[in-house]
């Protein structure tokens, strides 16, 4: 018993000193189990490659330049779509959040289109725009748009009425209130919306690349299926998870905390 407590205490102190380790250590048993299963030959190698095979494939694809190129393509698509989704979603959310009429008119329509999932648009998009960048961008923008709009509306509506009143009676014009009160007040929610939107968008992008793609991580995986290379498929899956972890845990989550908690808008 004492040994376990010692180990636990050691783990806590270790991760406190190097917080990065807390993200890596939980994966050690997963990789170990994976190694054991493959080494024991439970499944044929062609069905389930081992960790070393995947690492080797990573090195080869990186060396050939395929992986960096595809990764770059995927990320640029995601970022362009997310930027466009935000450029449309934030103003729309503010409009709906501040105007009762806009809320009444837009809200039901918004919920209706939210229900038609991103992928459900693909059949008709392929007819309209063909297998190309327009189709991909449409899907990403569509996916990012809804979480951003809905969270922005929530954020705008959660700004206490007295704050806008205070600003007005200190001499702020309605436009200044929007800039000085509504936007900063809604910012933590907007970032939450962005975080969700990017998460959905990342998944949608891979799905679209599998169907539409000519490059990208999704295309890499689907192309590997054609060649029967399970190693590259598994590599693609690992990259998806890893990349999202980095973006979410190292960029988005700290951003969310930095706004909300600093101002005492979010308690935790």
């Amino acid at each position, binding site marked *: 018993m004492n040994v376990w407590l010692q180990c636990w205490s050691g783990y806590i102190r270790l991760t406190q000193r190097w917080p990065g380790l807390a993200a890596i250590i939980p994966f050690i048993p997963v990789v170990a189990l994976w190694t054991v299963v493959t080494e024991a030959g439970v499944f044929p190698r062609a069905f389930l490659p081992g960790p070393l095979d995947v690492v080797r494939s990573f090195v080869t694809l990186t060396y050939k330049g395929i992986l960096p190129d595809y990764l770059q393509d995927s990320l640029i698509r995601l970022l362009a779509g997310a930027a466009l989704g935000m450029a449309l979603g934030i103003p729309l959310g503010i409009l709906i959040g501040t105007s009762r009429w806009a809320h009444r008119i837009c809200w039901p329509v918004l919920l209706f289109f939210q229900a038609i999932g991103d992928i459900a648009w693909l059949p008709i998009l392929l007819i309209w725009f063909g297998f190309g960048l327009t189709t991909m961008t449409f899907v990403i923008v569509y996916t990012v748009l809804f979480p951003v709009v809905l969270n922005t509306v929530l954020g705008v509506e959660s700004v*206490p009425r*007295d*704050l806008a*009143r*205070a*600003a*007005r*009676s*200190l*001499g*702020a*014009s309605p436009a*200044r209130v929007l800039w*000085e*009160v509504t936007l*900063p*007040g809604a*910012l933590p929610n907007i970032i939450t919306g962005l975080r969700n939107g990017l998460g959905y968008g990342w998944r949608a992008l891979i799905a679209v690349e599998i169907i539409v793609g000519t490059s990208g991580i999704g295309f890499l995986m689907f192309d590997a299926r054609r060649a029967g290379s399970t190693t590259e498929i598994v590599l693609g899956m690992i990259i998806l998870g890893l990349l999202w972890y980095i973006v979410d845990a190292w960029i988005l989550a700290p951003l969310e905390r930095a*706004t909300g908690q*600093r*101002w*005492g*808008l979010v308690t935790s």
Partner: protein
Amino acid sequence: MKTLSLRNLAKTYFDPYAGSHVTAVHDVSLDVQQGEFVSVVGPSGCGKTTILNMIAGFIPYSGGEILLDGKPVIGPGPERGVVFQSFALFPWKTVLDNVGFGPKMRGVPKAERDKIAREYLALAGLSHAANRYPNELSGGMQQRVGVVRALANNPAVLLMDEPFASVDAQTRMTLQEELTRIWQERRPTVVFITHDVAEAVFLANRVVVLSKGRILDQVDVNLRRPRVWDDLVNDDEFKRLSASVLQMVRAA
């Protein structure tokens, strides 16, 4: 010289749930002199906050008129500073930037509005908190910021809506004493809304008793200043005034 004038002010609104009109304020007329401190006291639902919101321009009025220095009041404006029960500080701005917000809206350059803000923070004994965020301060300190933020804009009238109702009893007494001190130094025109009779009498030159949307009576308070609770708790005049106002409020 009168600054603020309410003439037959009325507020009627439609209650969609009851399907009928409700009158919150009937025919209220009141003059406030420049540099006067007027408390408006009454039980909840008597229309006191409605009146304040109309003077502030937050809600439209349905009858009569409100004049400030002879000009009718339409919508909110910087000549009517407001102190809220909820403090209403901007959580994403430092204390200094909160107090400098009014001057910023007037286009005062950064260096100058910081100077103004620091001067007003010093008035409330808050110089040490200039660079902190509101959520790092106690309720009492937050409301001190709320008061000086409104004052820093140099309003013609300061409207205070139960500003000390959400702080603890001891802090409230301190804030009340500080407010009378600041009033004596700066002589702003104040309309102070409260349901606390002792508070109304302690602070004001004149107490207006409101009931069911009408002015029931007005009482002049000529207690000497500076006013501190240690003196006034045993002061016969204070006790007599409080008792008579309390009687009116309870009968209302």
